[in-house]
């Protein structure tokens, strides 16, 4: 039987979830540097990645303070192992083709947008401040990924087909975004995390309307969902991401001059 976590512990855990998801998706997008289908797309992907890494840093800074200052943002990002990462399974999925990259982005952006919208009203100045800043950026992210869903879904026969496959293959990772565990329920009552039911309804509403406009099929409501990211049970992909992302800091700990 585990003890009820204190509010600070719960918040610290939740901040790591927000930070880890932003960081891992940022890292995934950076893999496309030099490989995007067009130069404008490359700039957009890298700008989105930069926003996400910056947001992750803001959350890590606060998480590190709540923890008591034994570790800083860099230590949280670069010195934890896969089982300590709290990111959503969705964001660690490989880039795949551009339909997969954009469908993953869209599902995440929609969740991110509504999550931040709730956090802007959190009764904690730091959380509300970081969220307000991030929300402005994520509004652009969501706008762009929604447009891509429509362009590819309602595009050529091939792009439509690929987008159908992408939506279907990623759908099973969307469930854990919308279900709150004890940590999130605890925080939601204090206004420090979104209300899960409201979040799920908002997300579903937007996703339905965009998929419909994109002439894509809506996955069944009772589809099986894979969970585990928020508690550190990851797919096999995360280890490979960390191996690349953390190499330098692990090989040269505390190096000050690169």
């Amino acid at each position: 039987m585990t003890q009820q976590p204190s509010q600070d512990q719960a918040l610290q855990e939740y901040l790591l979830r927000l930070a880890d998801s932003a960081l891992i998706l940022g890292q995934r997008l950076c893999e496309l540097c030099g490989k995007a289908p067009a130069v404008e797309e490359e700039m957009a992907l890298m700008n989105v990645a930069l926003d996400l890494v910056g947001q992750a840093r803001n959350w890590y800074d606060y998480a590190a303070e709540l923890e008591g200052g034994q570790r800083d943002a860099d230590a949280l990002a670069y010195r934890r192992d896969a089982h300590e990462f709290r990111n959503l399974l969705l964001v660690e999925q490989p880039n795949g083709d551009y339909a997969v990259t954009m469908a993953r982005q869209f599902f995440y952006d929609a969740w991110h947008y509504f999550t931040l919208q709730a956090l802007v009203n959190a009764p904690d100045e730091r959380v509300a401040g970081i969220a307000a800043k991030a929300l402005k950026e994520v509004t652009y992210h969501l706008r762009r990924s929604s447009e891509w869903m429509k362009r590819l879904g309602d595009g050529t026969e091939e792009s439509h087909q690929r987008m159908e496959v992408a939506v279907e293959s990623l759908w099973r990772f969307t469930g854990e975004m919308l279900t709150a565990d004890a940590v999130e329920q605890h925080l939601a009552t204090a206004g420090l995390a979104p209300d899960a039911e409201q979040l799920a309804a908002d997300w579903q509403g937007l996703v339905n309307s965009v998929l419909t406009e994109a002439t894509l099929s809506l996955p069944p409501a009772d589809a099986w969902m894979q969970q585990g990211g928020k508690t550190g049970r990851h797919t096999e992909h995360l280890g490979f991401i960390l191996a690349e992302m953390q190499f330098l800091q692990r090989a040269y700990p505390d190096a000050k001059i690169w």
Partner: protein
Amino acid sequence: MQKSGNQPRPIPAPLEQPIIASDRVPANVGGEQLTETQLWQLLDEVKDPEVPVVSVVELGIVRSIQWLDNQLQVAVTPTYSGCPATELIEQQIAAALMQAGIRDPQVTRVLNPAWTTDWISDSGREKLRAYGIAPPQGSASKMTLLGHAEQISCPHCGSSHTEQVSEFGSTACKALYRCIDCLEPFDYFKCI
């Protein structure tokens, strides 16, 4: 790899005095006599590293300047969470103040309230346009989630006959546009 016959490097003699940057900061050369107006004018000389025609004051990222017990405190807000120029800007602000004789100024980062393009001054907007970047149009507070892009005027010929090429441009704060009349591509400083 060691080559045979290499002479060992001479060991430098120890320094008589350690070189520590803070030791070299000049004492207040009348720094505290600077009025608030003069301090704002001073920071108006610090340019944004990514758009070197506008100053950090014109961009609206310097939020406050105040003395707290003989220490000058400057609050700066980043334009974007991941803006890679944030640290450089903070260093340049501190350097400008130290050059004016202010000892140990404290530059702090504030996120709240979040920066908005509404804070870019009129002179800043004019300088952006002259530099070839279309300044933000309309108010950031009226930004809609899924609305259509607004009409942006070409900074080169003034035509409103333009189209968006990409929602994201060379830096996070810009979008890429093209003028249909003069055919020039240009950056648009987008509302946030």
